[in-house]
């Protein structure tokens, strides 16, 4: 069999679109990267709704000062579960879904390197979240000590500790297996003529993210395992009375936790770096510097963790070190923002929905970055810490950052997945509705924090009433906008204008050389691909 060097990813000598028949064979036992990608995305969507419902309860209670709707302990369960579900159930699986769908097609690989492990990585997740969510119905309720699980507080819950720990173990195993698969795929399965510096930025950012995952998920697993033994087997790893140290848990947790926030944002950088060149109709500015900046951010993310602990107490030298190290992250992040803007400079831009969400990402993520640098200043963080200022910070980077990038990616790639164009008018309505409401939701929280309103408290004094009311109104509107998003996605999957293989006029990359919807199997022959079709196919 000969390899046609300009083949379009789908061999035409026989039919490659034979999907397995029947629900069990097609979905439960699937080893196909596209089907597994779909499963991840659906799961993430479901968790987004569940976590979102909890956020609505939180904003409902905070609509007015005083206690109106829920018990304080239940409120704490909501803040804890909301964060755990959004971080581990929505944002991370959504990016793994995008990785599964796109990475093999972007590098000319027929599938992920380890397809059966891929099936496991996904199907562990529903069990993990069933375990975690079941605690809501237990005596004593769900974990309520915060997603950071600090001892001794977290150990004072009921038996939910055991469920929490096992759920975290399962999520950890799932994402480690997913990360191993991503790295093994990128390192070994690229089409023979695709080099590392030909890879799209989404592939690069995921490669680096996967290394972060492999380094820090086991550390989290270790930390929660010791929580478990402290709770049930009389160890005192984190118990001062027994010679342990609760502050050590915080160090271990944040050694995981800070890289974790970059695990949630690096793939978002990748998505946006795909979309902006397409709609600016220009190649990405500074491709190689983007790769280096991503690597630099990943490296720095390991050496800044204690900026979450300025108020816990550290030697002065350590406070200074973590302060300056944290501020350095702004440098490679600035490189990225500069490159996105430079890509648009003098481009012939159009503003389809994926581009709108990407532009909002660039602006609003940067606002979150700025408040991050403010909190990096140790002396002032003593005031900001544990207030709504930090809640505003991480929702700008996570909602208008990570979640906006996921939404942008869904609009960008859904024609490739489903074979249908989404409705552009509805997409734009969704964009403006989300973008306005999300700012009404989170911007006032900066002021609340600066004025001293603490996070994770169901009640507040009356001077905070007005901003909280606005924040809640924005929250309900944003929640509704995402129900609308589900409707748009549903409508697109069910029908709509037929998408071409190319989909977007300015798009470049191997994924656009296959038909839409992408056939069940693509790039099956492991042959060389046409480098001219790749955005960075020429050597740099």
């Amino acid at each position, binding site marked *: 069999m000969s390899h046609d060097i300009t083949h379009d990813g789908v061999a035409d000598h026989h039919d490659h679109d034979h999907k397995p028949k029947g629900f069990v064979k097609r979905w439960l036992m699937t080893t196909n990267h596209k089907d597994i990608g779909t499963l991840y995305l659906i799961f993430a969507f479901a968790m987004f709704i569940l976590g979102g419902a909890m956020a609505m309860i939180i904003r409902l209670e905070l609509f007015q000062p005083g206690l109106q709707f829920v018990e304080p302990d239940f409120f704490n369960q909501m803040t804890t579960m909301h964060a755990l579900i959004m971080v581990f159930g929505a944002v991370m699986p959504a990016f793994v879904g995008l990785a599964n769908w796109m990475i093999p097609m972007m590098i000319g690989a027929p599938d992920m390197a380890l397809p059966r492990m891929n099936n496991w990585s996904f199907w562990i997740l529903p069990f993990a979240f069933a375990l975690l969510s079941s605690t809501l119905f237990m005596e004593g309720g769900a974990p309520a000590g915060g997603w950071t699980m600090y001892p001794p507080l977290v150990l004072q819950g009921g038996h939910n500790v055991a469920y929490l720990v096992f759920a975290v173990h399962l999520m950890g195993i799932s994402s480690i297996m997913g*990360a191993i698969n991503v*790295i093994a795929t990128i390192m070994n399965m690229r089409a023979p003529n695709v080099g590392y510096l030909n890879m799209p930025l989404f592939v690069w950012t995921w490669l680096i993210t996967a290394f972060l995952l492999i380094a820090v998920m086991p*550390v989290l697993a270790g930390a929660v395992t010791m929580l478990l033994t402290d709770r049930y087997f009389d160890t005192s*790893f984190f118990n001062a009375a027994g*010679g342990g140290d609760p502050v050590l848990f915080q160090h271990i947790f944040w050694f995981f936790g800070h890289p974790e926030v970059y695990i949630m944002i690096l793939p978002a950088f990748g998505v946006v770096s795909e979309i902006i060149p397409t709609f600016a109709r220009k190649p990405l500015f500074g491709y190689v510097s983007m790769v280096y900046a991503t690597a630099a951010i990943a490296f720095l993310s390991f050496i800044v963790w204690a900026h979450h602990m300025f108020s816990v107490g550290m030697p002065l030298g350590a406070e200074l070190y973590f302060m300056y190290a944290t501020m350095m992250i702004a440098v490679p992040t600035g490189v990225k923002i500069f490159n996105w803007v430079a890509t648009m400079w003098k481009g012939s831009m159009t503003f389809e929905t994926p581009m709108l969400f990407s532009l909002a990402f660039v602006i609003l993520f940067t606002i979150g970055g700025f408040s991050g640098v403010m909190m990096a200043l140790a002396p002032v963080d003593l005031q900001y810490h544990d207030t709504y200022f930090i809640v505003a910070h991480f929702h700008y980077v996570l909602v208008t950052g990570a979640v906006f990038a996921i939404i942008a990616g869904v609009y960008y790639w859904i024609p490739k997945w489903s074979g249908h164009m989404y409705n552009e008018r509805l997409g734009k309505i969704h964009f403006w509705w989300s973008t306005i409401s999300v700012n009404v939701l989170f911007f006032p929280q900066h002021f609340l924090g600066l004025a001293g309103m603490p996070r994770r408290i169901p009640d507040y004094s009356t001077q905070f009433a007005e901003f909280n009311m606005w924040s809640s109104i924005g929250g309900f509107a944003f929640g509704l906008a995402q129900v609308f998003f589900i409707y748009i996605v549903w409508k697109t999957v069910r029908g709509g204008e037929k998408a071409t293989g190319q989909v977007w006029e300015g798009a470049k990359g191997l994924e656009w050389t296959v038909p839409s919807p992408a056939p069940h199997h693509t790039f099956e022959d492991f042959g060389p691909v046409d480098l001219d079709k790749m955005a960075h196919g020429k050597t740099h």
Partner: protein
Amino acid sequence: MNQEEKRIQEQRKAARKTAVILAVIAVGFFSWAVYIVVKHAT
């Protein structure tokens, strides 16, 4: 076995090796975290 099948097998074999190395690294990080705490606690 033709060229193509051979390359497929080689690529999958290399991928499995990568996966095993990465899994060992992951276990290493787990042990390291536990080691740090145990050392500190005693």
